């Protein structure tokens, strides 16, 4: 299918040229709100288009190299966006002022994500353990148990604002106080 290959080569060259300015959503041609199933469908669609096997038999080295470069970015995009936590951070990064530096998931992104997670649920293993148990108890409406766990978590991390906030919430609900209506 020679004419097809010719068009394909032009397209691949154009995409390869733009690649470093695209975010992962653009690489996979999905919008920011895409569901996991839509992302996966996009990964399959782009694989059918840019998988290096498609041009394995072709003698055109420039085409091969372009396709290879594009496809490696496709797998990179999928491996980051398929992970909820990474995706949230990535989407925030590329919406911010640092967009140009944050288009690719780097080691820094990885470190920042770890730090964010620690901030969210705590920096000590015991603090995290009691906090997670407290959240679970809260979900089951067992407010006394939740309160006990949040208090225990606070013993390990007295400065943790989230622990305090949650302990207060559990205490309030244990007393039968109504949730402040939204």
């Amino acid at each position, binding site marked *: 299918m020679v004419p097809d290959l010719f068009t394909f080569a032009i397209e691949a060259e154009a995409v390869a040229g733009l690649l470093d300015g695209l975010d992962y959503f653009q690489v996979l041609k999905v919008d920011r709100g895409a569901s996991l199933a839509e992302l996966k469908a996009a990964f399959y669609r782009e*694989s059918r288009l840019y998988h290096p*096997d498609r041009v394995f038999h072709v003698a055109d080295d420039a085409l091969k190299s372009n396709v290879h470069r594009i*496809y490696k970015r496709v797998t990179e995009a999928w491996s980051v966006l398929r992970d909820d936590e990474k995706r949230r951070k990535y989407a925030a990064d590329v919406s911010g002022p640092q967009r140009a530096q944050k288009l690719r998931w780097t080691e820094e992104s990885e470190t920042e994500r770890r730090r964010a997670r620690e901030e969210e649920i705590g920096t000590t293993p015991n603090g995290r353990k009691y906090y997670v148990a407290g959240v679970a108890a809260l979900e089951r409406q067992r407010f006394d148990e939740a309160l006990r766990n949040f208090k225990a978590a606070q013993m390990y991390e007295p400065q943790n604002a989230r622990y305090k906030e949650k302990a207060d919430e559990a205490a309030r609900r244990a007393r039968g106080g109504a949730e402040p209506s939204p």
Partner: protein
Amino acid sequence: MAGEIAIGIDLGTSYSCVSIVRDGRPQVVPNEWGETTHASVVSFLEDGTVAVGNAAKRNILVNAENTVYSAKRLIGRFFFSEEVKKTQALVPYTIVEGPNNSVRLQIRGKQMAVPEISALVLKEMKAIVENWLGEPVTKAVITCPAYFNDNQRQATRDAGRIAGLDVLRIINEPTAAALAYGFGKDANQRIAVYDLGGGTFDVSILEIGKDVFEVLSTAGDTYLGGDDFDDRVVHWLAEDFLRSTGLDLRQNKWCLQMLKEAAERAKIECGQQGWADVSIPGICQDPSGKVMNLEARLTTEIFNPMVMDLVQRTFKVCDEALQSARLTARDIDAVILVGGPTRLPIIRQSVAHYFGREPMKGIDPDQVVSMGAALQATALLGAETSTYLLDVTPLSLRIATVGGFTEKVLEKNTPVPIERSKFFTTSRDGQDRVKIRVLQGESARVEECESLGEFEFSGFRIAGRGEVKIEVAFEIDTNGIVNVRAVDAETGMQANTTIRLSSGMTESELQASVAANEATQLARGG
């Protein structure tokens, strides 16, 4: 080119198999005696020729020290590794240390690298197809266990090159099996491939979306295979004999070999009919010179408890693969069994129980991998690709940091091909080289990971400390093979790369091996 044929080779620990695609359908190519699976055994004969396959297997006893089997257990390993020590204790041929901690075999006064042995098996596979077609073939896809690391993959590719093959691709055995299963089915399914070979165990979870075969996860144990089942039977036979005669047959490599063969046969027979009689007349002599016979009956009731822990170990690996894929056993639509040992009823029953469904019938566990490899080989040659294999890397890629620790660069089960860059700066004024040690594994400690080599970069700008920023790109390609290159981040100038501490063969060694392989005559005889 129309009409060009590419072959698919399943290079197994115990047996190998070769296929081609004809009229769009994969088919196994038999040798001149109609055999479709060939023992991965290489026997160096007195006249300088080499016998490969089932004929060579018969030589394990009569030409023991010049007959190599289970080479796949040694391929891509370091001399000091556990597996090499274990193999050394069991086999009658001589394993010695080569340059850079590599493994060499000492045969008829000559030292050979492990890929050179595997290359002779590949040469035989190539010859089988050429004999069948009546025309030469050079292009091939070769399979390897999904859990093989970079060293083992590179060594497998080297073996192909030594055999004079143009290795189009190294693909994973379970992925090949899935391709053969799903080819032309137009299915949307999640499948599990349970691949218990002679020396390795792999499980891969795949999602098939019509023409796309996506590996969701893979897990494995490169130290678990059918041979371990044989060893249990050997142990049972030897202990029994020891109790009744006071003689330990395992002390003599010749007796041990007899036992191993009998054990393998008994295991297979017992699997087929529920019992097997073992009889080895004249296995040894007692100290007074009296000839002793070994007689025993193996039954399912004896065999199953003996291997139960091995079977359980495979399910730990299945748990891991499912967990990585974020699925449970109930989410799997079809289970495919691969490898001779999966013919054992205890495996079939346990797999059915674990997944809550019967494994697929009508798939030959010895042939399906080479058929998938042939399909992939043909797809790579063709102008119109009709299937897409989206595979993953089985092991995390790491670099060594300070104090014997490692840092992860790419997570296991990441889709390939993929690339990840890291930046390094010089730490001394006038520094002219940067060394990076690359490893694979799941441990934070260097000694618990497999070392792939040390990359040394030079030829970048020389300036003050911290002024030179070097971008190192780690790539895992479609073969699952790791490539590392570096550029000066500011000038974009490519740095020179030297690889050290690698057990692989050097370019000049490879070239010499290609010539030696070409000159080697394969013995033809039934």
